[in-house]
């Protein structure tokens, strides 16, 4: 009977942790480059966080006359205005910068509707006033921080503090890496981006927990094995699962990037990227960090924090 293709051989012995110098460099780049990007290029904040008006319209003719629409909307003197194609040639997205008061904000829609008239279908209108946008910024930040703290406590409770610290550090890596994607591609950063970040946090952690679980099990099983080797063994043992699981989730999410429509495109793309970066950080960030932090053996004897030379000698 068909027993499935074994995509990953059972007995891989890849020195993930042994070759950690290279992975440290990559991880550092994955954390620092996004921060530089955000600093230099910035994030394309959506109206959720910046306030303002967003209108998605569809013209009756098959190709929208962007220049004409732009001229008409610019003529209203509403400050910074963006007019761009959105998905289809007759779909147009109009973004108007935040107005000083809630009332002027509301008036901006009425004015745009007046100049564009009935000849277009107003598919979506979103207006976020200054009060709400500042609340959403605070709420989004609080959510990400609270989620991280809650997870830190849970992991601490279920494992040791070293696992919890390693998990949080790799989550920070995932979050900055994902924010970097938003900055690099200038994807709109809005409320659903926070949802994407939180989901990536949850999903990526899911993966770390599986490896931690195996590390803990192996710590009990092989009391004498050097930590480097033990970590590599644990990663290799769970490698097939790590790869298969990420491939399935990636396969499930990918169609949303391609055919899911513009409304959810950014969210789906961030999720897909998060799945990849989460897999990377499980193997190359969370595990080597445990080496540095020195996870405790079951007997309560603290392993010396990172003595790679001594361990290399022991192996030789």
């Amino acid at each position, binding site marked *: *009977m*068909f*027993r*499935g*293709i074994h*995509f990953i051989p*059972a007995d891989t012995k890849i020195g993930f942790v042994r070759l950690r110098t290279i992975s440290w460099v990559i991880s550092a780049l994955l954390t620092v480059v996004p921060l530089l990007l955000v600093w230099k290029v910035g994030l394309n904040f959506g109206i959720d966080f910046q306030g303002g008006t967003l209108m998605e319209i569809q013209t009756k003719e098959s190709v929208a006359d962007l220049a004409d629409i732009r001229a008409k909307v610019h003529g209203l003197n509403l400050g910074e205005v963006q007019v761009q194609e959105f998905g289809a040639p007759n779909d147009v997205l109009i973004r108007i910068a935040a107005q000083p008061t*809630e009332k002027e904000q*509301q008036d901006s829609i*009425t004015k745009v509707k007046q100049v564009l008239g009935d000849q277009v*279908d*107003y*598919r*979506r*209108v979103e*207006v976020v*006033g200054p*009060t*709400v946008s500042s609340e959403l910024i605070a709420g*989004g930040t*609080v*959510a990400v921080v609270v*989620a991280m703290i*809650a*997870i830190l406590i*849970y992991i601490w409770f279920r494992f040791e503090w070293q696992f919890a610290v390693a998990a949080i550090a790799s989550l920070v890596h995932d979050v900055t890496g994902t924010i970097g994607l938003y900055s690099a591609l200038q994807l709109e950063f809005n409320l*659903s981006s926070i*949802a994407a970040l939180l*989901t990536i*946090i*949850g*999903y990526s952690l*899911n*993966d770390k*927990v*599986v490896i931690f*679980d195996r590390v803990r099990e192996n710590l009990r099983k092989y009391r004498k094995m050097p930590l480097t080797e033990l970590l590599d063994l644990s990663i290799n*043992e769970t490698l*097939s*699962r790590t790869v298969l*699981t990420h*491939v*399935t*989730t*990636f*396969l*499930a*999410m*990918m*169609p*949303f990037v*391609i*055919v*899911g*429509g513009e*409304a*959810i495109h950014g*969210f*789906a793309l961030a*999720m897909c990227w998060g799945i990849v970066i989460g897999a990377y950080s499980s193997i190359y960030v969370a595990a080597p960090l445990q080496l540095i932090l020195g996870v405790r053996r079951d007997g309560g004897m603290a392993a010396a924090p990172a003595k790679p030379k001594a361990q290399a000698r022991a192996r030789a």
Partner: protein
Amino acid sequence: MLHFPQWKVILVLGVVIGGIIFALPNLFARSTMESMPAWLPHHQVNLGLDLQGGAHLLYQLDENEMVEDWLNKLRDDVRETLRKDRISYTDLTQNLADRSVSVRIREGTDYDKAYDELRKLSVPVGGTFALSGVRNMDVSRSGDNGIVLKATDAGLTQRMNSAIQASIETIRRRVDAFGTTEPSIQRQGRNRVLVQVPGISDVERLKKLIGETGKLEFRLVDAGASAQQVVESKQVPIDDDLLYSKGTPPVPYVIKKQVLVSGENLVDAQPGFDQRTGEPIVTFRFDATGAKRFARVTQENVGLPFAIVLDGKVISAPVIREPILGGSGQISGSFTVPEASDLAVTLRSGALPAKLTVIEERTVGASLGADSIAAGKKATGLGLLLVVLFMFAAYGLFGLFANIALVINIALIFGVLSLIGSTLTLPGIAGIVLTMGIAVDANVLINERIREEMRAGKSPVAAIEAGYRRAMSTIIDSNVTTLISTLVLFWLGSGPVRGFAVTLTIGILASMFTAVTVTRLMVSYWLRWTRPQLIPI
């Protein structure tokens, strides 16, 4: 682990079948479901505003305006009280920043009496504070015969609560006039009202109808003052207001401050047509008090013009030709037909206690909603197909078990969503997709464990037993972490994002059941029927 007592088998099958039955109505059109027998479940998943189109409007009540109104009224009460007791006073002022009204009593001999009388204006606050003896304002003495009446936080909260309550009722009456299905009007936070109206197309008209305060006043025009002169000199007589008409260009009127009759005394307002000119009008009827007062006022002022003022704008200023004794009348003001009908709704529904401002608006047209549903279906179908093919390729027969469990999982999500009347949004659909990944992850964990145990040389039954047992704690740990971040998302999010958290939570919980228990049941029967020597994994 692999032995299932009969009751457990029945329970598992019961949950699965129940889930499927509750999910089934979603496969049919709403009209088909209505013709089905009544005993069948026919709750369908509610579609969010982003999928079916509609308006989401978040209103904020102007707290300053509310406080100002209160202080104005309080100042009048203080004046009234002191006059009634013939106490002479000076410096009667209100302070908005301090939320207080202060007054100075002229004669030291009156001071104690004035203090006692003014104290009576403060009343205990009801509601949650009822037993604590907290009052709606503090009345205190301040140096040099002064008395300060200061609103307490509890008093303000109570006022805000009743203002929001009244606003919700007024808004409901106005939205109902649109005749749309299932509008939702809820309080949010301290001073906000969230209005959600599915399937509405004319959002501008909805906003106009809700946003109108609807404060109607009948006041006399000051015949002694010339509007033109007042505009030029900018000197408004002390008992008058300078108001403008609503048309363009606005016409100025000098109108007496005193309100003869107000909208509170209206019992009905209907749109209609003037019998002589045929122009659209609004006819109204007063209650007994209003009718009596209106009759007296019109009797006393025959030949003089009076003004109908709505939210500080003069709608019309006709001359009183004869006393109006019947308690009913009409407003004409060169309306269009829809304007007359909206004004009638506004007047009938009563005035809002304070001005409401839109602070967040999200409206989705029906065409975009339909496009999103189509895109969501396509992406989910494709994702499901890819996952199913991949799982079968990776694990063969055990992949097939996982796939069956996955389909049951999706059915359960829809079943639970329909049952609890939750709302499905576009991000919610993405949540279902993510659940597919998480659900098969449990099977990946189990199957990998079984493979390991097989390699360690265990018999099929022992390997499967151990695989399920040892994967379990990992599955729980990894799902709990995802649930934590999902709960945070639920707590933070609104609308679409919350929909994502809901489907993901239901999906994860359901996956613990389908991916673990349901596949184990399948594996257990497969073992019993085929008694394999080797597991095809």
